[in-house]
């Protein structure tokens, strides 16, 4: 790999300053890379280029966690440690960060890191292949958990790591021991220096690297992004690469022009100060969860469940919307909340109700060169009720068979307005117009529930696939309306198996 020049060049045409290399810390070693395939994954770079072989490939699609690494970024004077799946992260997206792998954790004298020691002492490894991934997830967790985390917090931290040998019991014990025993490690001792180095990496330049297979653009501003996309209307926009990563690793698609939005400052903004919540297209689930949970507790719970921690650390709400998956969980949820989508092409901007964005299977109302800039989510009034229910074979880290998102505005027990949106029920995320009609203006009673359940059969003709049959999808979707009714009317009845079960009966 060619080493990059040390300075950034101004473009002769007077556009944005270019930096023709990416730079990041690999452990404490500075990497400056200009010549690299835009689709090179972090895992392949580690294993094939660097021959750092501690990080394992289990599934190559971000679902097993064997390849978990930790990416460290500066944020308001602190270092933020995030576990991500190396197999679907692109090397270009490491720009400005510190990459830590399992090899980095030991002290120079060979002493194991507290999380490693805990895994040994609690017998948390058997075949050992998933172990480096668990160690890295635990390492990231130990940086934010405090000494006695809840079971739920441990579960969430390790939701993206599959183990086929241990049944997880010893790993829970290791997690508890690790959190209780972590004191200051080598990374803490070096934190100030690391922070200074990483902060010095942050600049306004547009990064552009590549090789004969294509180009990787990483603009730092929305204007630069807009210009690149106008010039390259067929470019593939990458946010968290939790979907594009699979186009690369599984579909082996040629993606000659990639534009990564992770550096774009404006798109990373999350604004909760006004009448509505404004979510930039580059905001990750992890970053958005707390704010959304504050206004809509059920949305917080959904974000907890819709993906593992490493996926939530990379994946963005904007990306989930923009790629239009019929089984994405964010879109129906935000449709039910009446969200507005803001798009931009060049200097031209437009907005639309999120529901209008989805035209047909795999087809969204996004023109070449256009990108999602942000999403506006209204805040709730006291009269509003919101519930979202995800049904999948497994509670964590599974794609929904059915997702039902329900927003009601109540006047006493009368429904003055309603939005019901579903995922997994049609070729796109879709509102249930007939069922809404059956509820709107009515008292929310058993008869209304029955009418809405019947109306759902007019709204949807779902498919049978490996996740669920058409019959199950329809029946469980109908039953979710029953659950909604029970939760809003019968706080004494238990309706949930996981998460904060008290959320079932939140008023508002």
């Amino acid at each position, binding site marked *: 790999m060619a080493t990059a020049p040390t300075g950034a060049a101004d473009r002769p045409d007077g556009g944005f300053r270019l930096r023709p290399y990416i730079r990041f810390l690999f452990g404490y070693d500075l990497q400056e890379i200009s010549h690299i395939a835009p689709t090179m994954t972090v895992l392949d770079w580690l294993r094939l280029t660097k021959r750092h072989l501690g990080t394992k490939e289990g599934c190559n699609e971000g679902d097993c966690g064997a390849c978990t690494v930790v990416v460290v970024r500066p944020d308001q004077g602190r270092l933020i440690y995030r576990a991500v799946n190396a197999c679907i992260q692109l090397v270009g997206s490491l720009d400005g960060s510190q990459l830590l792998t399992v090899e980095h954790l030991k002290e120079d004298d060979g002493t194991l890191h507290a999380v490693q020691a805990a895994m040994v002492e609690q017998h948390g490894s058997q*075949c050992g292949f998933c172990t480096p991934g668990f160690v890295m997830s635990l390492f990231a967790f130990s940086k934010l958990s405090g000494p006695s985390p809840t079971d739920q917090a441990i579960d969430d931290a390790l939701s993206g790591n599959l183990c086929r040998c241990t049944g997880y019991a010893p790993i829970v014990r290791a997690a508890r021991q690790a959190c209780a025993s972590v004191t200051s490690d080598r990374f803490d001792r070096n934190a100030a220096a690391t922070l200074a180095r990483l902060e010095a990496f942050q600049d306004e330049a547009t990064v552009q690297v590549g090789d004969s297979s294509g180009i990787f653009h990483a603009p730092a501003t929305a204007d630069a992004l807009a210009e690149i996309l106008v010039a390259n209307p067929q470019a593939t926009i990458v946010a968290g690469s939790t979907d594009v990563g699979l186009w690369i690793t599984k579909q082996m698609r040629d993606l000659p022009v990639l534009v990564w939005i992770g550096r774009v400052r404006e798109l990373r903004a999350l604004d909760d100060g006004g009448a509505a919540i404004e979510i930039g297209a580059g905001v990750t689930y992890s970053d958005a969860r707390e704010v959304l949970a504050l206004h809509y507790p059920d949305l917080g719970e959904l974000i907890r469940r819709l993906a593992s921690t490493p996926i939530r650390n990379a994946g963005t709400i904007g990306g989930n919307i923009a790629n239009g998956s019929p089984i994405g969980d964010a879109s129906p949820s935000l449709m039910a909340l009446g969200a507005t989508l803001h798009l931009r092409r060049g200097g031209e901007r437009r907005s639309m109700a999120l529901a209008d964005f989805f035209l047909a299977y795999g087809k969204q109302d996004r023109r070449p060169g256009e990108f999602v800039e942000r999403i506006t989510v209204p805040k709730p009034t006291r009269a509003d009720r919101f519930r979202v229910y995800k049904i999948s074979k497994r509670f964590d880290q599974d794609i929904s068979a059915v997702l039902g998102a329900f927003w009601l505005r109540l006047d006493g027990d009368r429904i003055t307005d309603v939005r019901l949106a579903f995922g997994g029920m049609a070729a796109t995320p879709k509102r249930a117009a007939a069922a809404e009609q059956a509820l709107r203006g009515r008292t929310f009673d058993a008869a209304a529930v029955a009418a809405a359940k019947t109306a759902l059969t007019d709204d949807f003709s779902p498919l049978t696939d490996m996740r669920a049959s058409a019959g199950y999808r329809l029946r469980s979707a109908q039953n979710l309306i029953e659950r909604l009714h029970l939760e809003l009317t019968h706080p004494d009845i238990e309706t949930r198996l996981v998460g904060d079960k008290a959320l079932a009966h939140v008023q508002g």
Partner: protein
Amino acid sequence: MSRVERIFPHAATLKSGVAASLPHDSAGRHVTGEAVYIDDMPEPEGMVHVYVGLSQRAHARLVDVDLSRVRSAPGVLAVFTAADIPGDNDVSPQHLHDEPLLATDRVEFAGQPVFIVAAGTRLEARAAVRLAAITYDDLPSVLDIDAAKATGKLVTTPMTLARGDAAAALAAAPRRISARLQIGGQEHFYLESQIAYAVPGEEDDVTVYSSTQNPTEVQHMVSVTLGVPAHAVTIEVRRMGGGFGGKETQCSAFACYAALVAKRLKRAAKIRPDRDDDMVMTGKRHDFTMDYDLGFDDDGRIRGVDMTFAAKCGWSADLSGPVTDRALFHADNCYFYPAVRAVSEPLKTNTVSNTAFRGFGGPQGIVGAERLIEEIAYATGLDALDVRKRNFYGKAGRDVTPYHQTVRDNIALELVEQLERDCDYRARRAAIRAANAGSPIIKRGIALTPVKFGISFTLTSSNQAGALLLVYTDGSVQINHGGTEMGQGLYVKVAQVVAEVLQIDISRIKITATTTGKVPNTSPTAASSGADLNGKAAEAAALTIKERLTTFVAEKWNVREDEVIFLPNRIRIGQQEVPFADVVKQAYLARVQLSATGFYKTPKIHWDRKAGRGRPFYYFAYGAACTEVAVDTLTGEYRIERVDILHDCGRSLNPILDIGQIEGAYVQGAGWLTTEELWWDGKGRLRTHAPSTYKIPAFSDRPRIFNVALYDGQNREESIFRSKAVGEPPLPLGVSALHAISDAVASVADYRHCPRLDAPATPERVLDTVDRMRAAAAKA
């Protein structure tokens, strides 16, 4: 301070012998990423990457296989088809010639290997295989058990077990039920996919590093397909990233591809399928249906039973014969059947060839037995646990299995009653039933199910093992044996045996990679037999060394042999004590042989399959689990809230590792019966071929309360230090999860109807069953 304590201040007593809870020998390397798996080995200059091109059709004639675009793809060095195989184009483990390494004129499942390509990089090889243009002439395909039953085509000879007159007993029984149980298959989902890496040697020689549970068979397959003697082929494996049976036979083809390319191109060659391809290409746990006809009395005692176990075997026999046999061997579980007939139907389908998976058919047999118990419980209104106890094997007259082996080591009742007390089963069951009456949506359920698992390969010849023990002049020791390490901790257990016999610290014992070059003709590490067989072989080798040293010492120091006593890290010779290493050094100088082989064959076992009689199992391992669940009756979702397990490992060689096996097996068993669903589309294509679609238990699926204890006992037979095998027996503990869900579901019809909840009990299947129960309740 004695002299010995001065020399070995920390080792005056041995802390690393048998029964010590030592950590896994590789644990420190696992957590640092320093444990080397095959894909982590150094790659020599010029190494090529191999990939395999797969059939897209379930059953078709190959009209034309146009590989011209593959050959000209970037980086491609060579493309090989069946015509390029120098030896026999067959990797069927039983040599039935029903499993070609590469397809010739037709394909029999979607995913069957058709050709292989070698390229400079793995990415190039993967990309190239997609360029094949294959013209198929589709043939009718048989995709499930019902369709296969209609054709009647079997992959191997079925078996019948019979004792007494089942038909007469059924006819005379006061009560009788017949129905069907369906049990799904299971993907192994070892975290490390299949992989093989071959390095060519001179003449015919080749060394293959293979992620295999079965080095000898891989050696044999490579030698047969290359057409070279076995002595030219060396197979080595240090560790696997999980096996679970999935690397007992399914690893062979990959080793053969790598070896073929390595020999043809005279370069090192590696093949590692992507996860999706691995899951599409390799066999899984067998799906079964059990049709049963059950006769019993009003007290819940079984009078007679007739069972047919039909298995979806896939396109070739693989291990389906012994797998379906073992299903029958476990169709009794812990229960005495006064009259019984059990029949296997190993059916041929145009799907991937199903194979070994932890339990090897046994768990399916046990699920079948437990369904019978459940039927009786709902029919009589008895607590299922009471039905279980009433039907346990007992004294003479109630102690003979359907295969005419007498159960002599039965501890089922004592073990179950201990667990029943320890987990407070009765009170919790009553509390759950009371609470369910007041909870319209979330229903809880509880079930306590036992396991009896037969230990030994049912193919008697497989019950043998060898070991090679090397003692070096510094007193350090190397132990080699035929067992493979897939995470279960076999290596450390065998090393503990050697440490115990020689009374030396385990740090003085090197645990080496398993290689066919050191111990030949080994059995697969399967059937839970790893520690039993290899531990005994290693013990024999260590005893040989110990005897030689004893003889030598007695002569040299002029004492009687009974005055030579092996103490921790030293030998007491009459009145003095000499460090082990010093004795070894002296023995070398006196020209005493310091290497030894050990051999073991399991005694007492024999099996006549045609007659359905014998003693296939040396002993039985027992266990029981009590699972509590909560079920959402609106959606069919559920959670395992608590499990209590009591399991019998005899006198455990390593209690902490055994507990780890039990915890892991329970979760794997529960996953099999709940969320793990294999789903093929109408064209016979597996659509659950990655973790995004195939859902093994994740972290939060483990029971929040997870109590595991070892039963205090020892093996009645003279197994290695009176321990019991632990790999497979705990897997069917997961059956209690299925029955706990079933118990919760039954509540919606006031426990008056047997839910007959099939497996896997996905949320969809649970909701279906809830709705069926509600309909039954409404009708009644």
